């Protein structure tokens, strides 16, 4: 298949890059100094895009590649892909669900524990040599805390299963109720926030869910509440989140995603009650390889006219 030209939108995985180079004619978007330069050389040959959470396939890119047949995303999130345009043009779209579910759920739990039990703060305390001067403060008990999940999809359900092992009562808000679970359902996010101590944002980013966690939700969660985001930065109104944390209207936050990655509001850097990660929810050796394998398998299936493994469109 090395006559087939595949576009990789940004550096995402050395392993994936090697695999793509071995099988296809690989074009790397970031090696071009200008868009015009890129389009001049490649617009008529590219038949597939491999995108990720940084650069996917927006309308402009899709429109400029007339031979495009498939977008295989190295992510489970689809917010960087113009799905409607793909549907209109008959372009297939695949993503990487399931293989990263455990890892993202693990980071959500790790962030919850890190904020509630102040693990990172304890670590800083010891490294700064403060322990001989006096004991560290008390931290809140985590087991049994009420956990509210926004979006009970694969990742949300995996988080719920883990939190249950800590005796945490689980409630959720989702597009639809899931009667097969015995978690408590709330039909709106405010009620969920009022009734939980830790709010975990685990839903997909769409037009409807943009800023779903706004000032009202943050205030409902309250000054003892903890907000965890492993979804997408824009699910939360970030300026509102920052001001709530600075003013003590929110108890703490654990964030793996931000509205304008890699920018992180610097006012957060001075806070002890937040834990910040650079969008690494699925970044383990095992999972990144599995994601890459899934991208490759989807591309191969498409070009061999076989059924796609994880189609979205």
């Amino acid at each position, binding site marked *: 298949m090395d006559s087939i030209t595949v576009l990789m939108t940004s550096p995402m995985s050395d392993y994936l890059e090697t695999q793509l180079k071995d099988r296809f004619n690989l074009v790397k978007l970031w090696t071009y100094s200008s868009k015009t330069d890129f389009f001049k050389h490649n617009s008529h040959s590219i038949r597939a895009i491999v995108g990720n959470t940084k650069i996917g396939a927006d309308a402009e890119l899709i429109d400029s590649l007339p031979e495009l047949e498939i977008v295989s995303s190295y992510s489970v999130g689809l917010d960087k892909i113009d799905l409607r345009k793909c549907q209109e043009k008959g372009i297939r779209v695949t993503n990487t669900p399931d293989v990263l579910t455990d890892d993202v759920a693990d980071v959500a739990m790790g962030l919850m524990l890190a904020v509630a*039990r102040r693990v990172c703060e304890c670590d800083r305390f010891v490294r700064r040599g403060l322990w001989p001067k006096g004991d560290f403060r008390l931290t809140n008990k985590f087991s049994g805390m009420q956990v509210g999940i926004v979006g009970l999809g694969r990742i949300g359900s995996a988080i719920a299963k883990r939190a249950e092992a800590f005796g945490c009562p689980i409630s959720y808000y989702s597009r639809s109720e899931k009667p097969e679970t015995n978690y408590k359902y709330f039909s709106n996010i405010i009620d969920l926030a009022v009734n939980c101590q830790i709010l975990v944002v685990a839903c997909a980013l769409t037009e409807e869910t943009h800023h779903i966690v706004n000032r009202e939700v943050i205030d409902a969660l309250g000054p003892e509440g903890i907000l965890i985001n492993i979804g997408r930065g824009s699910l939360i109104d970030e300026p509102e989140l920052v001001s709530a944390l600075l003013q003590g209207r929110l108890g703490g936050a654990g964030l793996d995603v931000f509205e304008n990655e890699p920018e992180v509001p610097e006012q957060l850097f001075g806070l002890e009650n937040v834990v910040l990660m650079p969008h690494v929810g699925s970044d383990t*050796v095992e999972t990144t390889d599995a994601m890459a394998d899934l991208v490759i398998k989807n591309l191969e299936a498409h070009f061999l006219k076989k059924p796609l493994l994880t189609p979205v469109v």
Partner: protein
Amino acid sequence: MTTPNCLGNHDHQSKELSQVLVLEPPPIMKLHGDQFLNDFQLLKAWESPLPLDQFLSIHAQSVKALLTPGRYPLTKNILQLIPSLQLVVTTSAGLNHIDLPEFQRRGIAIASAGDVYSEDVADMAVGLLIDVLRKISAADRYVRKGLWDTKAEFPLGSKLCSKRVGIVGLGSIGQEVAKRLQAFGCRIMYTSRNKKPFVSYPYYSNVLELAADSDVLIICCGLTEQTRHMINKDVMLALGKEGVVINIGRGAIIDEKELVQCLVQRELAGAGLDVFENEPHVPRELLTMDNVVLSPHRAVRTPESLTAMCEHVKGNLEAFFSNKPLLSPVMNI
């Protein structure tokens, strides 16, 4: 005749209250005061201007119960000064401050912390493990230093699911750790003094074999003569270069010097430590490592645990003085 303050209230009714000797205030008393023990007459040795041996000789000859924190070593010498002692209630999860054989010889009962702290300690163990494997504290440092937008890429972590977790000591804490990690898809194995009936996790009779078959070792046992430096160089090498050690037991269960060497020489992938051999001192080499997570012996310090411990201590003392079974007697010394 006035009674000094340290003998509790001055009311003549104080003679009817059962006496409880306290050599040094446990953390619950420092943080909560002692109202929860209003039903008892507290003999507060630390408030007396007398040196301890004199205080005990004068005031503690008929005392039957002692409340003690974990940091206060209860040695033979002290026991000799409290000849009527029948019960020690300790607020510490560990028992290494108590000369167990001597207590057994004298027939003194010990009421432990029971499982009051187990959930909190297990939570900390899991929190430390996720942090080490997924580099949470390291990621937080990376972001705060402004490194995200630079060429310095953040390294990949390691998946928790399917990791073989060897639990050293399957008591109350070890079982809570196991229960939690099972939900993450970890495979649990354990070693303990004895195989536990009704437990389906694979049992290993020695820690070296457990380490050889594990990706992670979590130290959940108590410190005794047998477990001192049980996690030695051989065990750490058996765990291997991808191995991770989590310690929420006692620092001295691990040969700390060897641990540091193994980490420096990359014979171990990482460690999460809440306890150390010479607290509050932590080996300098660890303070700059990115693959370790350090905690200042805080695993049990939640307000909820402290409140529960007040109730638990009171419950044990009440049981003792009314000749009922203790809530959490230590057996099988």
